[in-house]
């Protein structure tokens, strides 16, 4: 038996390879660079890697290929758009990592232990979060371009494992942070198991693990539909878990709250792009002809997710938990784009993912600024009167909230309009109606935060807004600029998306 070397198209794979290379160098930096320089070297390395990768994505933006890695990945227009979105969102959010006050000095030390105290005193801050982030991003980049189930699963684990760790890195309230990480890990492991289970059934159904093979069986319609149904159902559970759709959302409020805020922002934005990217490809190509089997179920999940997220968010008193439930509601809106199953739906979903991701990073960037002597203040009651003390920061946050609420002249409105109109066009009127209704509900709690910040008198409890560092300021300025620009004049981006939004099969 002879061994044939796999034929790889390195140019098309280079965005991911660059990230992996950067991550590996990051590990070496962690081991060999002195602690005084480590932080700055890691940050520049990470940003440089991301920018290089983005440049590479730009270089290949007109390419399409089914055979870049022996049929395991597909490079096409949506793949390019999703990868570029993930990279841009990552670059914006990585600036927030520079403030080491968010991260534990030594993650390996037990909370409250002698070692922890020692590393804090000596200022021996480890910066493993950077290579971890790069590993996660490379998994996210692979997730939406995978074209067989094994690659899809590997990508899923590649993006998840670093995230589990990163969720536990918080410097303050370490126990809560570690609990969040454990919860995320356990539930993630469960969902991975479901995912694998679904894969097995799909293999049983079509005797293939490639998208093309399964699609062929679905189109042919000769297989055993029971196997297909079970396969779709379990595979969907794995994906719905990642996007935080009800009833697989239970992890998200705790993880959002427990994880260090920069990580939360990055995770909330970039993971959604990757997971929805993969979902769009699977439902739009592999399962498109079995629409009858999954649209009803997914519609119900979308409706429940929107309404549940919006309703429960009203009761939240913690800003990070509120944003977590709001992200659940947004997952519901995005599901409407999956259900639409038309070109408009694909375009709308990609636009929405990018716009929502950018606004989310910006919103969490604001959260990192509101502090008292013992760290971040996430209790909403203590955000009272923020508008008086720091009008610009409060106004920026209000801008993001208005975008989440979908008020015109923000990116959120264009996103909502396009996704709902695509869903309506496909006949999913119930989903659109539920979407409009939950938008009305959601507006209530976004506005309540604006009221707290601007119209309520401040309490004297030492909460203050930290002056943003140059990097945090960059995050804020870039994200609010994109949020408003996409609301006022979205035509250029919509054109780009429209030109590239065709899945090849």
């Amino acid at each position, binding site marked *: 038996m002879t061994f044939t070397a796999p034929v790889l198209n390195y140019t098309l794979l280079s965005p991911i390879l660059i990230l992996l290379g950067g991550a590996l160098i990051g590990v070496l930096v962690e081991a060999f660079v002195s602690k005084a320089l480590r932080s700055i070297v890691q940050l520049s390395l990470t940003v440089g890697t991301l920018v290089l990768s983005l440049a590479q994505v730009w270089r290949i933006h007109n390419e399409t290929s089914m055979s870049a890695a022996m049929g395991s990945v597909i490079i096409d227009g949506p793949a390019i758009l999703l990868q570029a979105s993930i990279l841009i969102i990552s670059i914006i959010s990585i600036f927030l990592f520079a403030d080491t006050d968010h991260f534990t000095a030594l993650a390996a030390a037990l909370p409250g232990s002698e070692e922890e105290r020692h590393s804090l005193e000596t200022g021996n801050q480890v910066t493993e979060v950077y290579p971890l982030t790069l590993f996660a991003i490379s998994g996210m980049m692979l997730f939406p371009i995978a074209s067989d189930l094994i690659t899809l699963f590997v990508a899923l684990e590649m993006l998840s494992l670093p995230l589990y760790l990163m969720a536990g890195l918080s410097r303050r309230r370490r126990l809560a942070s570690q609990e969040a990480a454990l919860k995320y890990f356990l539930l993630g492991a469960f969902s991975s198991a479901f995912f694998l289970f679904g894969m097995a059934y799909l293999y049983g159904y079509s005797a293939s693990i490639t998208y093309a093979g399964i699609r062929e069986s679905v189109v042919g319609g000769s297989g055993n539909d029971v196997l297909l149904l079970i396969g779709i159902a379990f595979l969907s559970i794995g994906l719905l878990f990642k996007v935080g759709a009800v009833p697989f959302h239970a992890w998200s409020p705790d993880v959002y709250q427990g994880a260090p805020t920069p990580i939360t922002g990055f995770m909330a934005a970039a993971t959604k792009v990757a997971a929805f990217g993969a979902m769009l490809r699977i439902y739009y190509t592999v399962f498109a002809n079995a629409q009858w089997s999954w649209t009803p179920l997914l519609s119900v999940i979308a409706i429940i997710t929107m309404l549940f997220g919006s309703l429960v968010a009203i009761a939240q008193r913690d800003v990070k938990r509120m944003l977590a439930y709001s992200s659940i509601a947004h997952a519901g809106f995005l599901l409407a784009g999956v259900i639409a199953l038309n070109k408009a739906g694909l*375009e709308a979903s990609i636009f929405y993912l990018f716009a929502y991701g950018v606004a989310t990073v910006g919103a969490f960037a604001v959260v990192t600024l509101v502090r008292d002597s013992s760290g971040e203040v996430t209790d909403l009651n203590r955000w009272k009167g923020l*508008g*008086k003390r720091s*009008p610009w920061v409060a106004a920026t946050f209000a801008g993001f909230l*208005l975008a989440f*609420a979908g*008020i*015109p*002249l923000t990116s959120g*409105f*264009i996103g909502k*309009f*396009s996704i*709902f*109109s695509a869903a*309506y*066009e496909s006949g999913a009127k119930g989903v*659109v*109606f539920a979407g*409009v*209704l939950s*938008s*009305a509900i959601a*507006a*209530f709690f976004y*506005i*309540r935060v604006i*009221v707290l910040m*601007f*119209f*309520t008198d401040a309490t004297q409890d030492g909460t203050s807004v930290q002056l943003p560092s140059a990097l945090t300021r960059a995050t804020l300025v870039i994200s609010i600029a994109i949020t408003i620009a996409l609301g006022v*004049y*979205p*035509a250029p981006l*919509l*054109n780009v998306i*429209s030109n590239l939004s065709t899945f090849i099969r």
Partner: protein
Amino acid sequence: MNWLTLLMVLPLIGSVALAVLPKENEKLVKQVALASTLVVMGATIAMAVGFQRDNIELQFVEKYAWIPSFGINYALGVDGLALVLILMSTILAPVVVLAGWNESQGGRWSVKTFYILILVLETMMIGVFAATDVFLFYVIFEAMLIPVYFLIGGYGSGERSAAAVKFLIYSLFGGLMMLASIIALYVMSGAQGGHTFDLAALSQLQMSSMTQNLLFLGFFIAFAIKAPLWPLHTWLPDAAESATPGTSVLLLGVLDKVGTFGMIRYCLTLFPDASKTFTPVILVLAVISIIYGAILAIGQRDLKRLIAFTSISHFGFITLGIFAMTSQGYSGAALYMFNHGFSTAALFLVGGWMISRRGSSTISDFGGLQRITPVMAWMFFLAGMSSLALPGMSSFVSEFLVLVGTFTRYPVHAVIATFGIVLAALYILIPVQKALHGPTTPGNENLSDLNLREKIAIAPVMAIIIVLGFYPAPLLNVINPAATHVIAQLGFSDPAPTSGGK
């Protein structure tokens, strides 16, 4: 020349100018704000002179692609009705700035922010009446809420933040109902020859009567919340009570008109059949609003809430005129919108001066003002007479036209609505008697009369009310061609006058 864009850009330039001025120099800020609004008013009048009144087509049309992938255009144009309302808005803006010279003090934020918000709002007020692309209209319709929200919540008094939130939630809810309808229109246009938001193109869409009814409701609910129609009115008294008088003038005088304007421009144009289907229900709601608003106005102790309830009654008349589907009713409603802007402005501004001098808005705290502050008292009296539609005041003409227009088709509604006029006499004359006449209430002895600035501010408002009361022809000439055209398009002809009993 792109007149309408120019009108929209001018206040924005003013607001940018304000933004770079130092916060401390409040006097300069106010002067720049006043100058900006005066320039806009001048430009509007210059534009209105060039309006061809016998031409029923849209005029001053502009159209540029905005979001081509959705078929969205930046499209503007005015007919007689829109022109009149833009004129009203831009005349009221400098009046509000001048009249409320000091009302922005005591807000949560600086005087500068107040006038920036006012100027941004003025841009949107012009845009909302001028838009001929449904998407553009919706964007401005919703975006307008934000400055008003901050004006009420930031500069009002009393329970200002609660009132601001109530206003916003009601409006957003209505807006989202409308959004659902707009999405449906958009999708249907895609199925019938290409995605578009052009109002004229959308009005040609074929749809089943069920669809038409549902979409009509989406729009109508949004507009009925804006131009508060019973039972969707409850946000208005709270908002008017909390807002500064100037904000209230813009809120009731201009923003609420977007509701009645929208009923004409969007409900009647896009869904003529559904409009006819729902007419019986809407007429009943309008009559209830007239009577209900009037009765509750009589019962109010707070001057600002009283004015708010009178407005609910007046909006009932406007809605009645619109849905009577006669050209007199329509002309009356259009004229009513214009007149109501000025009579409400007069009431709120004079009322606001009374309140700020006395430090109380309770009607019974006033008394004997006719002796102490004769000019202010006369102005309040005149404003009240305009509100109850005394002959000789402009509002009389419009109310008369509405009732005549309604009577020819719906005599019962018209007769009941007439009771609103009787009640109007009560809700105006009672506060006039309590506040202006009778013995001087202790604490009022040293109130000062109107100063020169206030006299200058109120003079044009009174002049318009009285001049148009005797000679409404200039406005009616602009409105009437459009009225006849709209009614004809709906497939109605005015019933011939009949004399009963023969």
